[in-house]
């Protein structure tokens, strides 16, 4: 077997060298580094603030100018997590040691409690001000999910299992992608283009700026946070209580 791998590695080298050469040749035809002249970015930079009162041009792209594409991305996320659930969520055995174990160090538990509050606050802040300053639903959602994971790391599996239960997360995940889709369809029914920004742009630099972008932002945050929590929950469950072999 190891001979086979060595031969495969040696055979791969010339092929990869050829591929690499083609790739570098292609990349050398790009505009020089630092001299990009794409028109779209330039236009959005100059339109996001006057049109939508959004000071964060990246969020304006994600949830407004390219909002339909983000809907597709959300469905990739949703489909991937559904796949994981289909593969991993089945009859499981009882891993008693994993289920009953808890962190006994008081210091660690205290640090965990403090960190949880801080991480949760940072996550919500990153989501809420996504239209104004760097951040948004995607980044903040990941931070919120990470904060919840601290419960497992610094308290106990039982405590984690209570907050990351299937019955709580599955509806939230569905709601995230559902709200996004419904908002898009609602604008269609009202006679406007799909995902049309239907609210007034608000005052720039405030939480009310960006119009309906904030709704899409929060829907995405729900979806991303719940999707990540479902992933963590499924893999952790697999770790503490492996699926019963043979019974499928």
């Amino acid at each position, binding site marked *: 077997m190891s001979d086979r791998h060595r031969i495969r590695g040696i055979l791969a080298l010339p092929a990869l060298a050829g591929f690499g050469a083609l790739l570098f040749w292609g990349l050398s035809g790009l505009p020089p580094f630092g001299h990009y002249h794409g028109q779209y970015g330039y236009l*959005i930079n100059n339109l996001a603030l006057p049109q939508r009162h959004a000071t964060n041009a990246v969020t304006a792209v994600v949830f407004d100018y390219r909002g339909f594409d983000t809907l597709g991305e959300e469905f990739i996320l949703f489909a991937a997590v559904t796949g994981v659930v289909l593969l991993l969520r089945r009859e499981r055995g009882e891993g008693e040691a994993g289920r009953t174990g808890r962190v006994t160090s008081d210091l660690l538990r205290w640090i965990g409690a403090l960190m949880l509050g801080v991480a949760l606050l940072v996550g919500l802040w990153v989501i809420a001000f996504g239209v104004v300053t760097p951040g948004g639903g995607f980044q903040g959602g990941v931070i919120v999910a990470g904060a919840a994971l601290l419960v497992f790391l610094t308290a106990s599996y039982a405590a984690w299992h209570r907050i990351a239960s299937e019955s709580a997360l599955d509806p939230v995940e569905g709601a995230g992608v559902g709200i996004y889709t419904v908002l898009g369809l609602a604008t269609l029914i009202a006679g406007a283009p799909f995902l049309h920004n239907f609210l007034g742009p608000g005052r720039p630099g405030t939480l009310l700026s960006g119009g309906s972008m904030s709704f899409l932002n929060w829907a995405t945050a729900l979806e991303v946070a719940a999707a990540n929590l479902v992933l963590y929950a499924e893999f952790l469950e697999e770790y503490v209580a492996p699926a019963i072999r043979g019974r499928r």
Partner: protein
Amino acid sequence: MHFLAFGVAGWICVVGLYGAITSRNLVHLALCLTVTQSSTYVLLLAIGYRTHGGAPIFKGVKLGTTTVDPVVQALTLTDIVVSVTVIGLILALALDVHKQRGTVDPDAVADFKG
């Protein structure tokens, strides 16, 4: 020097592919795919870079200031988050293979039938 960022992107792509070809472990294979995919992030961000450009955020910054391209940034940020869940799916598949065959060597499951 100007070619460095594009060179790094190409190098990450090739290295990831080499790892995938010579992989002996499905988990390792999944991570190699992540490495290959990361090259697209480096490439996208390198393409959108403008010399002395700031972040495309106009809070307290005058409109019309030189910034890096916001479109490629948006593409990269959504893809990073989505790719995490896709890798989760691939790892779940690897876990399933291990449950059914007792191995995670891609060669040993080459004759895998559903």
